């Protein structure tokens, strides 16, 4: 086992994994475009995407409904996975994530509040306002979780309190929705369970700006993240400004989570399951490679789940969160069982 062989073997594994993820992403992309209540043949997809389609209905279905929805799946899925990865790093806890820590629900609560108030008066709410509201909600719950983390040392208690916060926020959100105006209820109800449907290109533009910029910053931070993975005192000894780094980590994960919640509502388990799966596939936890792979993995996971949500019981549509839970929860359970085995 020489060095070049071993290093080459590892590189090969990275390359294969990334290639696999990309192939899956493209495959799901095509499936998502083609499948649905109206099936579009592969050959037509190409034509329509290139703007040469003759069938106007298909053209509209793809360009106005499926494409923006898919873009949302890709961007928000990636954002969720990254947000989970950051929170896991921050709390040094493999099952931390925006959903279990209640951050998604906190964001949802404030967004619901803003929506109900705004829709009652102006009929529409701009995406920027929604994201800001979600960010405020995420930061408030994050602040609460951080307080709890300072008091309780056990990481299991942190998760329990996060779940509790999540329930409280969801309950209040339900309460708000129950007493909201008739017209807004339908929208809110769908949204508060998590869905990618009814995404407009305008929404996609806003989320692309937020998610792409934030994710890029996260990628640039992969070096301090790698140091932080060892624990604070070692990271500091490597020259990381711990205080600044922690603040950045909290802000970035909150922005990512807020972006997702503002557009798609709370989506469960992606944040925990994807980073774990990606790390196992890559055989490493190096942020430099895990961060892009995580984004890719999150996108795949959400595209796949959304496809199932749309098509499994068509024309009925499932909430995306139910589907991600079905696939994500077993991963988390398996992960904990394996942890136990090793300990």
């Amino acid at each position: 086992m020489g060095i070049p062989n071993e290093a080459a073997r590892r590189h090969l594994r990275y390359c294969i994994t990334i290639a696999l993820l990309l192939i899956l992403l493209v495959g799901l992309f095509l499936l998502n475009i083609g499948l649905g209540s109206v099936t579009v043949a592969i050959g037509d997809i190409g034509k329509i995407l290139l703007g040469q389609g003759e069938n106007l209905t298909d053209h509209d279905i793809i360009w106005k409904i499926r494409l923006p929805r898919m873009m949302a799946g890709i961007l928000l899925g990636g954002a969720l996975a990254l947000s989970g990865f950051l929170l896991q790093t921050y709390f040094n806890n493999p099952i931390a994530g925006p959903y279990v820590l209640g951050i998604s629900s906190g964001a949802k609560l404030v967004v619901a509040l803003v929506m109900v108030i705004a829709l009652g008066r102006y009929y529409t709410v701009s995406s920027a306002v929604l994201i800001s509201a979600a960010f405020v909600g995420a930061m408030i719950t994050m602040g609460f979780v951080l307080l709890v983390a300072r008091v309780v040392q056990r990481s299991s208690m942190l998760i329990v309190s996060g779940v509790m916060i999540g329930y409280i926020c969801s309950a209040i959100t339900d309460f708000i929705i129950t007493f909201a105006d008739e017209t807004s209820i339908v929208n809110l109800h769908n949204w508060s369970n998590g869905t990618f449907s009814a995404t407009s290109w305008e929404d996609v533009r806003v989320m692309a700006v937020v998610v792409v910029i934030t994710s890029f910053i996260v990628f640039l931070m992969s070096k301090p993240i790698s140091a932080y993975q060892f624990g604070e005192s070692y990271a500091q000894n490597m020259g990381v400004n711990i205080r600044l780094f922690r603040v950045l980590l909290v802000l970035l994960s909150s922005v990512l989570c807020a972006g997702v919640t503002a557009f798609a509502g709370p989506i469960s388990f992606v944040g925990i399951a994807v980073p774990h799966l990606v790390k196992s596939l890559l055989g490493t936890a190096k942020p430099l490679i895990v961060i892009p792979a995580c984004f890719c993995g999150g996108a795949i996971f959400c595209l796949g789940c959304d496809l199932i949500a749309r098509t499994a019981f068509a024309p009925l549509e499932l909430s995306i969160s139910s589907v991600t839970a079905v696939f994500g929860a077993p991963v988390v359970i398996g992960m904990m069982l394996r942890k136990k085995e090793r300990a």
Partner: protein
Amino acid sequence: MEYFFRTSRLTVGYNGKPLIKDIEIRLQKGQILTLIGPNGSGKSTILKSITKYLKSICGTVYIDNRSIDDMNDRDMSYQVSVVLTERLRTELMTCEDIVATGRYPYTGMLGILSRRDKVQVRKAMELVNAWELKERDFTQISDGQRQRILLARAICQEPQIIVLDEPTSFLDIRFKLELLGILATMAKEHGITVIMSLHELEMAQKVSDLVMCVKGETITHFGSPREIFQKELIGELYELVNGSYNPLFGSFEMERPKGDAKVFVIAGGGTGVAQYRVLQKKRIPFVAGILHENDVDYQIASDLASEVVVEKGFQRIGENTYQKALQRLKSCDTVINCLTSYGEMNEKNKELLETASAQGLNILETADAL
């Protein structure tokens, strides 16, 4: 005199509460300083403060005449690297990956290792004899291997100072020796200053250039191992009541048996040590004699025996000493004779044995039967 590392009126503690006051350390480049003292005396607190992990309450730490308060985290990382007691949390990391994190201050924005970085990683791993571990998962190696990897990590950071918090705990003796040997080499050949805490006093005595005794509120002593490793000083530092410290061997003996001694052990030249220990374990008080001051038996007997009848080194056993031994012998009922041959210096011991025999005392060769 110029010191590479010094502290001036350094006071350390947690949350603004001072724990240890007025710490004055003076170190030259390439010296090894060891902090000793009882558990919870604040050794780790001092180490954390001089690495800037803990904010010191007042006073200053100077490295190469620069105050560490004026250095940012990055500057510090070029000066000081650490090996801590806290368990390094890792996930899917090979040993080589771990060591490579020592290159962190030198790599670019994305932390990609250059050719030079890789060379340094390899050098550091070879220095601690751990190159063959490079592909192993860090969580699946032994404590001794883990400690070597962490040391390699600290070395490959190319610091001026390495700070280690109890680096030898949990290691078996071979790894202890190996680790301290590496540190000594680093200090003497590469001019790296080493500051560490140790629980193993016998090791501290052998590896350190300077020793600092930490206890409670203050530094009780700071000096060379020869000054520090004194029977009384160590006894006080650790509040030894049920045992004692032997500075010559750097070792500890258990508490001496109490009570009226009824056993007389005749020994010399190292023949008695084993019997003294057997008697100690059986809690039987005994008198040791007639020993010379320069005899190894005397070193142990003075810690374990109720009384030692002793003659000056290099001198024939005199009549006075013999009479004293005889007096004491007569109040005993058992004699353990460890000697099989007698020389000019100690032929009185033979006389002693014959007297005991004539008096009808119980004469044994070992203490096993008691």
